[in-house]
């Protein structure tokens, strides 16, 4: 295989990953690492470096579309970014000391969690529990355009939210993923933000979190231009296309299919990790 063929294959794989990731809300980054490591036999360090870059691209690209709708809460996002950036830098530092097989197993577990969260998506409504002292002091309460005009909401559970966000940051820095599923968990379950607000704010934060560890990966030489180029361009184009057809009714079926694919990749990652083939 020559360089052009390899680039084309990785590009097409990334395009597909970005497309399905956007369509299902799971993000393309989550399948890039297993795709590169298991299918193309790329070293885990290079795979994580390339995935991290694609995560920044999709997050920033999608955020531009979301902000017009007025759902995100920039104060909540900015405040929680303290925890995610510290977490991401710790995760990137931790990646130096952990063996590839340990990282692969952690990756598999996080993949399974993401797949489960994706399937359960949209079956709950967040309940407003009234104002909270810390959130009020931090002026986090906000409004969003709901079905009956502008709806206001109260934010709660700031300390727990911060703690979960730190974990999300560590996972992002260690595995090269956006860890959107964990971020949504923090804002949705712990801080009681409306679902639309938590998903868009999470997307906003993913880019900043990934940038915090990407700087470290770049200076350590984990980001290879020949590999990152097709991955970044492929995932970006794929996710932009995926966002356009998002309204289609088949999204639900696709989410199940994609979650199934992710579960298989997860098992494969764990198995490869344990048997030391990565």
């Amino acid at each position, binding site marked *: 295989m*020559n360089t052009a063929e390899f680039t084309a294959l990785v590009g097409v794989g990334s395009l597909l990953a970005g497309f399905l990731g956007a369509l299902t809300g799971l993000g393309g980054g989550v399948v890039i690492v297993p795709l590169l490591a298991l299918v193309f036999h790329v070293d885990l360090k290079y795979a994580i470096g390339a995935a991290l870059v694609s995560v920044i*691209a999709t997050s920033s690209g999608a955020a531009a579309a979301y*902000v017009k709708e007025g759902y995100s809460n920039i104060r909540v996002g900015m405040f929680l970014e303290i925890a995610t950036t510290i977490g991401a*830098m710790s995760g990137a530092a931790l990646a130096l000391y952990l063996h590839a097989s340990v990282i692969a197993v952690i990756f598999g577990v996080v993949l399974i969690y993401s797949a489960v969260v994706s399937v359960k998506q949209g079956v709950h409504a967040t309940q407003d529990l009234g104002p909270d002292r810390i959130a009020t002091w931090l002026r986090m309460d906000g409004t969003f355009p709901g079905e009956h005009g502008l709806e206001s909401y109260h934010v709660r559970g700031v300390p727990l939210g911060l703690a979960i966000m730190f974990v999300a940051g560590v996972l992002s820095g260690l595995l090269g993923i956006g860890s959107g599923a964990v971020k949504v968990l923090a804002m949705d379950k712990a801080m009681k933000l409306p679902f639309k607000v938590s998903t868009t704010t999470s997307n906003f934060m993913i880019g900043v979190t990934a*940038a915090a560890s990407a700087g470290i990966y770049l200076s350590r030489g984990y*980001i*290879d231009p*020949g*590999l990152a180029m097709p991955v970044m361009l492929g995932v970006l184009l794929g996710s932009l296309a995926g966002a356009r057809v998002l309204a289609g009714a088949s999204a639900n079926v696709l989410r199940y299919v994609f979650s199934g694919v992710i579960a298989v990749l997860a098992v494969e990652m764990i198995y490869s990790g344990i048997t030391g083939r990565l």
Partner: protein
Amino acid sequence: MNETAVRRSDQKLDEIMGALLRSGVVLAAAIVFVGGVVYLTRHRVPVTDYRVFAGEPAELRTISGIFHEALAFHGRGLIQLGLLVLIATPVARVAFSLLAFLYQRDWTYVFVAVLVLGLLLYSLFGGHRG
């Protein structure tokens, strides 16, 4: 500043940040694409072996090295410059938020934004080796 003014200002801020992020991503993708074309037209040798981690050479992992390589119009250097622009995009977003919070005289969030920006800059320029 009263609550309504802050909300309106937040909304405006959201829109400008959206435009900023989009321009950053478009610029980064364009540079990476050009770099990719240069890389593929000149790099006809068999595919790089990514199975074994070797790490990038120094000129592709420091900011000054990347600028030097990109100015020499080397494919790999150009791609790396595009990726650097991409990494800088969310950092610029945080810097922009800092200015907006200063304008709103919201000192709590000025402090929060300075902290996040400091962490990001340390990660980019901290000179980590591994």
